[in-house]
């Protein structure tokens, strides 16, 4: 179970990105975090594994308090958290297989890691995952030869091979077209159910969140303004979430695809 308790982040620039955020995630829940640009979605998920260092509050995974761990203990807990990125963040010049296996580096001794000498069970597991994410046949291709959807599936496989207790995804579909976005979302939900782990997904498109998430957290200006099942996300709740956002044109520009739900929000806001 992941517990986030009163988490705050103030950047060096003075930006208060998170102003006391608390929630819990457990089981194999899919939790979508939605909110306008600049609401603090990325800051929130990145604070959970401390890719961004929160300034106050607590994050705990099961019985481990992540905030306050020293360097080597933080590495250990990071192995339990898989992360998936908007821009995939693969090593473009390495093969699919090499990229996937790099999710296991944290488990190797320095010398074995240096030689990329992975134990046979890691390689076996990598092959299994390869078929789960439907990438059989391209395992020896370089990552830069793949399509966006394929790359994101490599990114997912790299996170899954860690055997994480939770997956964190920062806008995993924003660089993909609408159809591919849906494929990736259903792959993520399958993984949550098969591996019985929760997933926290930052997401721009409200309709994707509604279709795939078990719970939606609405973030606005660094604060949680909605936390409940998709069915409860009525117009009032949407207005509340997007009330304090940036200009609508800015927010909608990147996701001109199929975001009918958020288009409605715009219409009603009448800007």
């Amino acid at each position, binding site marked *: 179970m992941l517990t986030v308790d009163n988490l705050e982040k103030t950047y060096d620039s003075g930006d208060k990105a998170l102003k006391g955020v608390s929630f819990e995630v457990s089981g194999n829940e899919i939790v979508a975090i939605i909110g306008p640009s600049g609401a603090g979605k990325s800051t929130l998920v990145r604070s959970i*594994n401390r*890719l961004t260092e929160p300034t106050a509050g607590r994050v705990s995974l099961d019985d481990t308090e992540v905030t306050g761990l020293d360097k080597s203990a933080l590495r250990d807990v990071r192995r339990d958290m898989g992360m998936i*990125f908007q821009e995939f*963040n693969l090593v473009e*010049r390495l093969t699919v297989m090499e990229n996937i296996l*790099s999710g296991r*580096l944290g488990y190797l001794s320095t010398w074995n890691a240096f030689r990329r000498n992975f134990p046979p069970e890691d390689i076996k597991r990598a092959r299994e995952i390869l078929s789960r994410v439907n990438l059989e046949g391209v395992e020896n291709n370089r990552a830069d030869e793949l399509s966006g959807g394929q790359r994101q599936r490599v990114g997912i496989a790299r996170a899954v091979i860690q055997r994480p207790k939770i997956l964190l995804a920062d806008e995993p579909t924003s660089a993909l077209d609408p159809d591919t976005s849906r494929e990736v979302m259903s792959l993520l939900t399958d993984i949550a159910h098969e591996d019985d782990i929760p997933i926290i997904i930052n997401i721009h498109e409200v309709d994707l969140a509604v279709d795939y998430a078990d719970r939606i957290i609405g973030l606005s200006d660094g604060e949680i303004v909605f936390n409940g099942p998709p069915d409860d996300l009525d117009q009032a709740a949407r207005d509340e979430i997007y009330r304090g956002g940036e200009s609508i044109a800015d927010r909608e520009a990147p996701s001109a695809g199929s975001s009918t739900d958020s288009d409605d929000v715009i219409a009603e806001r009448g800007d």
Partner: protein
Amino acid sequence: MSEKYSGPDAAQHAATGLSKRQLTTLLGGCVILAAAAWIAEVDPMALLAAGAREQMAAFVAEGIPPETSREYLLGRSLRDGLLWAVVETLAISVVGTTLAVALAVPLGLTSAATVTHRGPLYRNASAGRITVGRGLYHASRTVLSFLRSVPGIVWGFLFVTAIGLGPFAGVLALAVHNAGVLGKLYADFLEDTDPMTTEAVAGSGATRLQAVCHGMVPQVTPTIASYTLYRWECTIRSAAILGFVGAGGVGYYLVITIQRLQYGKLSTAILAVFALVVTSDWLGSRLRTRLG
């Protein structure tokens, strides 16, 4: 002519071809060039002077045909003769470049801010660790600047003085100078890598060293390999003149035949260097396209 619009001025001068700014730049360039030519004592008449013409005629007359006697080419023993000197030049460049890489890799790593103290790998680092990293970075950048600011031939002279005449002094000279050149190149490439990729590796629980080795370095290995090969082509040319200071190779034949006015032998030596350079460039570029 003026393609970029830079105010009404540009539009007005578009017809005449040059904007005010372009004219100023051009004029400034001419002034600098004239000053530089004066400092460099440029004197076209020197080329046409009677003495110069005589000398050049003498070189052509005596330099053709190039000397091809067996004794000159092969010498009296194994380590003798022009051909051996060519082989020696090649060997100096190969060993020198290899040693340079061996020095440049650690120095390049400690000269890359993204490895020592900046960026995603240091987001959870203590202030003390960052200070230490910054110190290491500045120290090794300074070492690299020093190594490459002393020309290879000067290093050759110093090593000849230290360890005596011979090709090993040349090897060390090339290694040290090129460690400076390659180390800086490696460090700059490492600083240019995508931080998000490195972050992704570190985010899965890898150590800093692992994130460097498997997140940062693989982003640049093909580029680095290709530049290193290019640098090797350059060291062939440097190795060819190391003989001037007695640090081995074909340069010895160049300098000795010039001093003794043996133009036939000199043109053979020049042709040998030419062949060596052409061959290594060809080989280098072939290898580089294969790295692609």
